[in-house]
């Protein structure tokens, strides 16, 4: 690994540890990483949106990709309209003309909501309703396919539970009717189903989230510690850098402690002065 790359990797490892330090509490290291990443990411997306969004969608249409012809000989001059609308957003810089920026905003919201209505009606409501109706309940295998097996997801009973559960949960979402009597009991069953579903989906995610952390440990170990400290040793063979992780953690904690001591010392000095 050449030295330049090693420095970059060290920076990456430092930022990784700095963000992990947030788990203890808000501290200068985290603040450094946070402020830096906010700036860098905002700049990154601005550049990417310019190159991949504005350039192909507007400039290349208006001026055929050539900066000096501008829009005069464009094959799609009607793209001036969104360009003007976009520029209208900048009236927000002026107090007097800020109301003009409401037009593009209104257009934005009008178009977006208009698109959403039939799309959501079709994709969420109609599609789900059809899915409910589509399959008949498997009465022949009511207690499980090929014998008594309550945990068979394809059994008639499971299908019936899906149906009844979904309906009960829908009843829970009724707003204009008091949840009392039979109606209330069904709604109660509905919220049970919702809670079981939420619990299951929470439990299902735990494992994947821990994998993210494993991935980070391996990043520090393989990309930084092993490459930096013992060049030439492959990540998998022999050398276990886990000890080195602990070593570096201890170093970091000690250094952090010293910095903190210095800071408090400076602060008290400031106050006394």
């Amino acid at each position: 690994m050449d030295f330049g790359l090693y420095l970059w990797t060290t920076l990456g490892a430092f930022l990784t540890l700095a963000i992990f330090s947030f788990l203890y509490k808000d501290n200068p290291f985290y603040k450094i990483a946070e402020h830096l990443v906010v700036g860098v990411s905002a700049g990154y997306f601005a550049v990417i949106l310019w190159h991949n969004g504005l350039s192909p969608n507007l400039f290349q249409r208006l001026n055929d990709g050539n900066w000096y012809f501008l829009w005069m000989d464009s094959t799609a001059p009607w793209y001036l309209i969104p360009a003007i609308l976009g520029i209208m957003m900048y009236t927000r810089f002026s107090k007097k003309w800020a109301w003009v920026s409401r037009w593009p905003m209104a257009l934005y919201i009008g178009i977006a909501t208009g698109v959403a209505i039939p799309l959501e009606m079709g994709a969420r409501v109609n599609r789900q309703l059809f899915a409910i109706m589509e399959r008949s309940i498997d009465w022949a295998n009511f207690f499980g396919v090929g014998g008594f097996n309550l945990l068979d997801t394809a059994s008639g009973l499971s299908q019936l539970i899906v149906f009844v559960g979904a309906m009960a949960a829908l009843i829970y979402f009724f707003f204009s009717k008091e949840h009392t009597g039979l109606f209330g009991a069904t709604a109660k069953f509905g919220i049970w189903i919702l809670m079981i579903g939420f619990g299951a989906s929470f439990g299902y995610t735990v494992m994947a989230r821990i994998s993210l952390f494993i991935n980070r440990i391996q990043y520090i170990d393989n990309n930084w510690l092993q490459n930096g400290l013992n060049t030439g040793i492959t990540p998998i063979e022999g050398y276990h850098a886990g000890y080195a992780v602990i070593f570096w953690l201890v170093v970091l904690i000690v250094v952090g402690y010293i910095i903190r001591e210095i800071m408090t010392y400076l602060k008290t000095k400031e106050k006394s002065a």
Partner: protein
Amino acid sequence: MKRQLPLALVFVFGLFMVFQYFVPHESSEWVYEFLLDWILIIGIFAVALGIWSLFRVAVDKIKTHKPNWGYSYLTLLGLFSMVVFGFTALNGESWGWYFPFAISALMAIMMIAQTMATTSQKGLYAGLTGLFALIAVVIAIFDPAWSFHFSTAEGVENPMFRAFFDHILIPCLSTMFALLAFFIASAAYRAFRARNLLASLLLIAALIVMLRFNPWLAAVYGDFGARLSNWLMNVPNMAAQRAIVIGVGLGIVATALKVILGIERGYMGKG
């Protein structure tokens, strides 16, 4: 004009988009695609407003010496480094005077910020801005090793742009994501207590599914655990999702209808 026209625009364009969905003809699709481009372009133009807001909040922090104001310099530095790197690219292998240029260009921008932030020494920082800008411009004119690229995306391949992405952005973002491993633990600890029936249901379902992935505890109930957790995922979870999806669909359609019809004007600050 100030209030009525926006509402009229929402109504006209919203209604058009609703009925466009049922007209597959080319002409209707053309308008549809054109209008979607409007949204996209308005959105990208607005990014400048966002960057301006970020810039101003940072400068304001520095100006008023709010707590942690010093870190705001980092934000500005990161932001403008990416912008400078993203629009310049090397013409060959040689770096030439690229770094002196990049540093002086960045310093010029930082000095603009400093001029805005300072209260007493405006003249000094304005002068420094001019000086750094002059250096940057001179290098830009005479150095053949690199050039600006606005209409094409060479800047994205700039090694410095890539390095900032690979070694600052990616480690930070994926570590932030990895914090979830801890937060999921502490959230589970705090919330998974059998306080009442609903909490117990949540707890039990989560535990069953979690235990299924644990190699040790799986020994206790073996195959049964896997099947039970699959059943939970495919039966009650499916029912819950179905109900929520339908409900959300109706909620979206109702809200969108109200917006188009001008009944709900909350997004314009008029409820």
